[in-house]
């Protein structure tokens, strides 16, 4: 940097024989490494995550990046608390609107999944255990109208909304989850009940789920209004074309 600007008269560091611009080389080297890291870091991080797998849950792994950490997002301030008598509402174009407590959900046929959670910003947590009720099963038991081709979701935080077509729900095998990571869904992860859409970016898996409305029109959810794609397959095309 600025090797040419010599200020007249004042004694600067006199360049001596053997002086090398190592500072600049070091800076450029770090920039190069940073660029390589951005380009190929995904593979390195995957390797590190695999190495850390045996340590998962020991608290040690939680201290370093890739040790199975979620980054917890909220769209409001803090994690919202569920109403004292939590009920999941299923309504809209259905024969029998439902009001289901967590216990009611647990009594329905359960689906267990082990699947990664991929955030749209790049981080991923592998092999997360999920338990819940298939969305298509819920629609069936509510007696969904044949023309009800869209699910609309809202959260009891009052802001977060999401949307999923019946086709996407079917292809992904999306579940209404009441268990995650081997226990009830925690407050930070969107408990007591959240959505999980395998194969789609995490923002689709709405947290603090309170209402599922069956409609026939796709209405953009919270993140989609903020510019994310409605069609959120992480691989770009969904499982059918894989």
């Amino acid at each position, binding site marked *: 940097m600025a*090797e040419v600007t010599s200020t007249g008269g004042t004694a600067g*560091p006199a360049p001596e024989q053997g*002086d090398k611009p190592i500072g*600049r080389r070091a*800076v450029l080297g770090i920039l190069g490494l940073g660029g390589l890291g951005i380009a190929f870091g995904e593979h390195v991080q995957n390797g590190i995550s695999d190495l850390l797998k045996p340590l998962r849950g020991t608290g040690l792994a939680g201290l370093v990046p890739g040790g199975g950490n979620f980054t*917890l997002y*909220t769209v409001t301030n803090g994690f919202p608390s569920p109403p004292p008598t939590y009920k999941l509402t299923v309504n809209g174009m259905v024969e029998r609107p439902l009001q289901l407590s967590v216990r009611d959900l647990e009594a329905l046929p359960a689906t267990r999944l082990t699947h990664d959670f991929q955030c749209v910003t790049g981080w991923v947590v592998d092999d997360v255990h999920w338990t819940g009720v298939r969305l298509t099963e819920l629609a069936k038991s509510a007696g969904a109208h044949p023309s009800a081709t869209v699910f609309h979701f809202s959260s009891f935080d009052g802001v977060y909304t999401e949307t999923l077509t019946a086709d996407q729900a079917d292809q992904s095998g999306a579940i209404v989850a009441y268990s995650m990571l081997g226990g009830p869904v925690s407050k930070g992860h969107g408990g007591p009940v959240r959505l999980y859409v395998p194969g789609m970016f995490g923002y689709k898996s709405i947290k603090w789920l309170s209402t599922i409305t069956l409609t026939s029109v796709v209405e953009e959810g919270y993140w989609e209004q903020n510019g994310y794609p409605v069609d959120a397959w992480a691989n770009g095309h969904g499982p059918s074309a894989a």
Partner: protein
Amino acid sequence: MASPTTHRSVVPLPEQERPGLLNRFDRVERAVHWTNAVLFAVLVVTGAALYFAPLTAIVGRRELVERTHLYAGLALPVPLILALSGSWGQALRRDIRRFNRWSRDDRRWLRAVIRPAADRRQVFARVRVGKFNAGQKANAAFTAGAGLVMLASGAILRWYRPFPLSVRAGATFVHNWLALGFVIVVLGHVLMALADRQALKSMLFGRISRAWARHHAPAWLDELSEEERAPAEQTGR
């Protein structure tokens, strides 16, 4: 083992070496340093609140934390750019040139760091270090390079839409790990400063004793011309 000269002891001064204080950092340099320090602290605190789930749960207010982190990060290069954009940045520019150039002695000094303590002391006593030693030069280079990488990877995370998922994952990887490294390096910097109160005070008030310079930066002392020497002042430090 007989150690060579212990520089801490008071040695009789040659005629021309009046006791007095030298200007080590000028107002602009100190302002940049402390603005950076505050911004860095904000970045660490907000970054931790965004990253560690238990902290996220306690702090909440993600939107506010996120925005604070973003603006602090974008603001980080601003003091340096402002300082370098005018004649007031003369001292800073000169120090940056000093950071850039590594003398033979600097390289010897750095190689000695990994040697056993006795060897190291011997090398340190022999080499003539300038205003900054090789450790400080390495720290400066790391801070500049890693700061830019953090800025770039952070910008990708914030404005990720044009980037493919693998690049976002790579940016996440770089940003997370380098943040960890950065915190460790800065922690080391802070500990070293706390271990050398004179050096710390010179970053606060600008001046440092000639005795300190003779011990830590002999080549710098040689380099200073008469008119640059700070007038002896009893009020300093």
